[in-house]
């Protein structure tokens, strides 16, 4: 009973950790120069959108915690940021038909942009690096595009997985 109810969370956490390893260890194999897609943002946004703000919040928290632990200097900051991003993605869910592929892409792109903008403000603007246009074109935009493309290929699979796990979980309650 208990295992059934936590299986979804365990699998989610597993996916996030796997994604964190891919993000930190696999992508740099291809190139250290070009920007990579942001899997943490992808998972936070997609799970928030699919499963609602509660799941988005949890996923964001775990993603942020992973981001903090795998890199970063301040523990908890990414966790906080990602958690709120996931939560907000979950808030949008109830207005949109979730089978549509276009909106998740836009949402992930917007989330990625928001994350990068905040990151820019805190890490660059405060150090008087004000050329956001340059950073946007050379760093943010490629990341957004890569991430959006990944959403295009992975969204349906995440949706399917989520529904399956949800059915499994509900089956335990009846």
């Amino acid at each position, binding site marked *: 009973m208990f295992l059934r109810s936590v299986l979804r969370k365990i699998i989610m956490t597993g996916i996030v950790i796997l994604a964190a*390893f891919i993000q930190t*260890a696999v992508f740099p194999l291809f190139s250290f120069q070009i920007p990579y897609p942001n899997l943490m943002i992808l998972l936070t946004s997609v799970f928030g959108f699919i499963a609602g703000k509660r799941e988005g919040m949890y996923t964001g928290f775990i993603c*942020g915690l992973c981001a903090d*632990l*795998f890199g970063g200097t301040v523990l*908890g*900051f990414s966790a906080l940021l990602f958690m709120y991003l996931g939560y907000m993605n979950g808030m949008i869910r109830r207005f949109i038909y979730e089978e549509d592929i276009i909106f998740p892409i836009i949402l992930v792109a917007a989330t990625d942009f928001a994350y990068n903008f905040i990151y820019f403000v805190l890490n660059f603007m405060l150090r008087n690096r004000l050329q956001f246009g340059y950073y946007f074109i050379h760093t943010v935009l490629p990341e957004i595009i890569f991430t959006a493309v990944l959403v295009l290929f992975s969204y349906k699979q995440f949706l399917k997985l989520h529904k399956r796990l949800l059915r499994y979980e509900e089956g335990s309650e009846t």
Partner: protein
Amino acid sequence: MKKLNHKIRTKHMLWILSGVCIALIGISFLLPGVRNAVKTGAAYVITPIQRGINHMGMWFADKTDSFKKMDEVIAENERLKQRVDELTEENSMLVQNRYELERLRELLALSNDYPDYDTAAAKVIAKESGNWFHSFNIDIGKNQGIEPDMNVISGGGLVGIVTEVYENSAVVESIIDDGYNVSGKCASSSDLCIVNGDLSLIESGLLRITNIMKDSTVKEGDMILTSHISSKYLPGILIGYVTELTEDSNDLTKSGYLIPAVDFEHIEEVLVIKQLKDTGGEK
């Protein structure tokens, strides 16, 4: 009711987790030791996995790299094959050209060797009846500075010698005339010989070559030039190429046949070398 409860709990959770995050941030700034300990613990788990992924990734990257290179090599091979075809075609053309060039160079060698020779171009205006020229008339004579005993060449090969000169024409006796003798010399071995016109050989288009010393190294295919000891012919003019060579019955000399360098059957234009051999005698 349950849904509302759930909502509240989510919001509460958000606040709780926010508090946790802020606490973590606070710890990061206020207690670097704790933060470092946490990071170190995390790294203890994370780093080996990342390293493993990296190794694997590098291995795969190597593989894909080699596949990529394979593709490149295949594509390049395709290109090179095409290039080989092109070059083969070009080469065969060039080989043909080279043969032509060699032939032309050989023919030209004469005028290169003796660039000082002043020549006069002449047209063959008359000839004796028959397939082969024996003696023929050219369209230049005394007025153009032609004198008897001037050598006549065509295409780099010796044609004959001017025997009679008129005002505006001259008679040239060709080397294929029966009984006509030219002192020759083998280009490679400098062995001397005599080239005879032979009526019996006119049909076969050959000249006879005699008086080659038995010990000489003249062999088939050798180039025969006019010799330096000739009284009338300038040295070094190509006569022809040795074909057959047999030992004479006197056991002292060899003789054989010579293919003339000039195509006598189609001779139309000749060059008259306007220089006489200086024999240092009478005159």
